[in-house]
């Protein structure tokens, strides 16, 4: 088990630290399958854990990476205690994605997503809006678009894949 270096520098501005990084920690936990409330709780725990010892900010990216590691370990520990398993495919890809966002401000990500959404077809956009904005079931979406349920599923899967690729491209491009 590796020990992280303990910095002896002066205390950080807690409010500033939290304000800057809370959103990326919360999103990271969400991508690990946490509900919004659970992610909120764990974000709080993450910062408290990190602030237990003197902490020096080297770079924004290093701080975020450190926060993500602590958050993930806290989540793993919580899952162990609950006796729950969360199966997540392609964990490496998740981490790679978040590493790629380190150079961006957290707000930028939603801007990318909005732009990428505009690039989708009208039907795909409508399907995603019905799903995430109106909380419609897949059956309702299928009925509205006059396609089968499998068709609706495929449509949304493809749309999300496009979105992912689009965002990753933008992240690469920006960096």
């Amino acid at each position, binding site marked *: 088990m590796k020990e*992280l270096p303990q910095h002896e520098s002066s205390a950080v501005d807690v409010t500033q630290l939290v304000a800057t990084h809370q959103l990326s920690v919360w999103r990271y936990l*969400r991508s690990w399958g946490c509900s919004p409330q659970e992610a909120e709780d764990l974000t*709080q725990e993450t910062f*408290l854990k990190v602030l237990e010892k003197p902490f020096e900010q080297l770079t924004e990216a290093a701080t975020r990476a450190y926060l993500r590691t602590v958050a993930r*370990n806290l989540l793993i520990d919580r899952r162990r205690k609950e006796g729950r398993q969360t199966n997540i495919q392609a964990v490496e890809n998740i981490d790679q*994605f978040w590493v790629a966002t380190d150079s961006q401000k957290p707000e930028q990500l939603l801007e990318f997503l909005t732009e990428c959404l505009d690039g989708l077809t009208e039907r795909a956009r409508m399907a995603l809006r019905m799903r995430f904005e109106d909380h419609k079931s897949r059956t309702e979406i299928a009925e509205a678009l006059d396609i089968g349920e499998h068709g609706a599923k495929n449509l949304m899967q493809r749309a999300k894949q496009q979105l*992912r690729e689009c965002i990753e491209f933008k992240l690469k491009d920006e960096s």
Partner: protein
Amino acid sequence: MNHEDPIIDPLLEELLGQQQMPDLSARIAKAHQQRKQQAKDASVNGHARAPLSMTLMATDSTAPVTSTEAPEPSSRANTARRRMQRRRMVATIGSLALSLCLLVILGGVAYYGYQSFSDQNTVPGQGIPLAADGKQNPSGGARDHQAKPETDQVPQIASNTKQTTPNAGMSKPGSKMPIVQPPGPATLANNTVAPRFVQPRVRDSLKLSDRQIVDEIDQQVASVWQAENVKPSPDATDHEFCRRTYLQLLGRIPTVDEIKQFVNYRQDGRREWLVDEILGGEKYEAEFASFWSARFANLLVGRAGGMSKDSSINRQALESYLVDAFRENKPYHLVVQDLLTAQGTTSPGSEQFNPATNFLVSMIDGDAKLATAKTCSAFLGQQMQCAECHNHPSTGWSQEKYWGLNAFFRQTKLATDSKTGALAVVDRDFSNTAQSDAGEVYYEQPNGLLKVAYPQFVDGTTIPRSGNLAKVDRRQELAQLIVNSDQFPKVTVNRMWQHFFGVGFTQPVDDMGPHNPASHPELLEKLSQHFAESNFDLRRLMRWITLSQPYGLSSRQIDENLADNPDGGKQLFARYYARQMEAEQLFHSLQMLANQPSRGNAIIALGERHSWLGQVNQKMGDDEDSETSTLDGGISQSLLMMNGGLMRKATDAQAAVLKNVTASKMPIQEKVDHLFLAALSRRPTKKESSAIGEILKTRPNQAAALQDIWWALLNSNEFILDH
């Protein structure tokens, strides 16, 4: 929602589904400060800092939180479990070995100490008596010396335990806030008035006549009798009705003249006449207002509130305020708004004097938790105090709701008036950080997580979050939300019904909700609606209830209504429930019998009433503001009744009623009748008359015999009964 794409799905939920993260900066900063403080306190006490695991459930000391790489939960769970088992085994063996070493060392030390003590203190031939000797006490000596540091450690350990207990570490923001010292009286009042966000609710005006509403009550109650297959008891006699109506409306038994006047009323509608005489007549106005002010003061600050010298409540001022409110028949919702929003000093002598502040004054300190619970139980009929620390298991009350309600009181502070030194209730801006004026409230969940709450009414209504008084006056909004709610008139009707019948539609009256359904939900609903439409007119509500059929029934149970069992939780109101008089009713009745039989005198003596009731009721001093009363049918009550000062005064030969009777030229039988009427509001039965006749024959001193009879009547079970 299951995520097909772990990254895109949550992002879409955030963008399109508005599942966004609230700003946690202030909350985390606050929690961090608390942790630091706890750690500091622990180190000051010479003990290790409060373990984080006590407050961070999900983080134990073995969690690899500082590592950069963690095993995946699914693939390495077994390895981790084995590693954990090995660690536990090593720890167990280690602690056993350590304990053995300690035992050996302690044994050696004890032996050495014993030897050296024997060498220094024992005279040859005299040993130190052993504890097992059986005849003598074990020696102190070295043991006492060693025991001292241990006893010194006890409080230290206790205090450390307290700090590390999750509940003890509960977030108490503001609990250490100093009492605000306003710079001058002028600052007690707001200079700027915040806009109102909750508008007064517009209700229909009452279209039904009183008679129609009384008929509606009768029909509703009768339909339940029919459904439950019970029959009502016969009507109460006029004497019974007269006694209970005086007791319920004026808080005392009727005088002999009043009984005679009622019984001799020859026109139709005798009962209606009596109720109107008391509720509407000028001659009873002061007495009525005085009794009901005491009743409502009990509801607001408890029977013992303001009775002791060290109490912050000026009960006399509060009751005076309520007296005025009842005299002018002020709509009840306006009274409640006054009480909830009052600012100013609690006692006269200052320009800022506002007697209504005496409701909240004792409940603001300690983060206004008492104020939250009391407001909820008194005006919303719900017991919310449990939710301060945990979600209620059955009522659906969550901690979030409790603290959301509590947030309405957090602008309110205690202060002292710089001129008079009187205690004052004032409002101030409330915010936790300089960056934001959102006056959030922090609370800790049982699992140690710190949460945040903003003002939110029990039905989920929110107001702007600002704690800035110029922007939002939280208490004003709360008062409006309460009186606008459907629950408010229901609670009032339920409470008033309980006053007149001894039992409300729910038991207890301040625990309403789906978990405790009302016995007559439709009646409660309709009556509440009528009450609200009458502009919250308490006198009209009293009139409806006292003229209803169930109120006028006899208290005698008949075979056909045995199922009517309020003690078993089934109140059908098929009879009037006989019960012991309340403390105020007993005091007023005895006071009247001791002084003048004319009206009003019993009630004016506020100071005497407080002093007598103060003996009977005491605060328990718990966090629910509970009280205890000695008027519980026990020995204390019997002693108070037989030997108490007030009873001695009422049974003294010079007492008003007795003196009038003994000095009068009435025939002896009439004198006895008069005493019976005065004490029990009825004439003696034939059996009682003949028994008393026998007593009188054997007693040469008629006045002394009548005094004994009078004493016996006042100490009878029947006297103290409201039936």
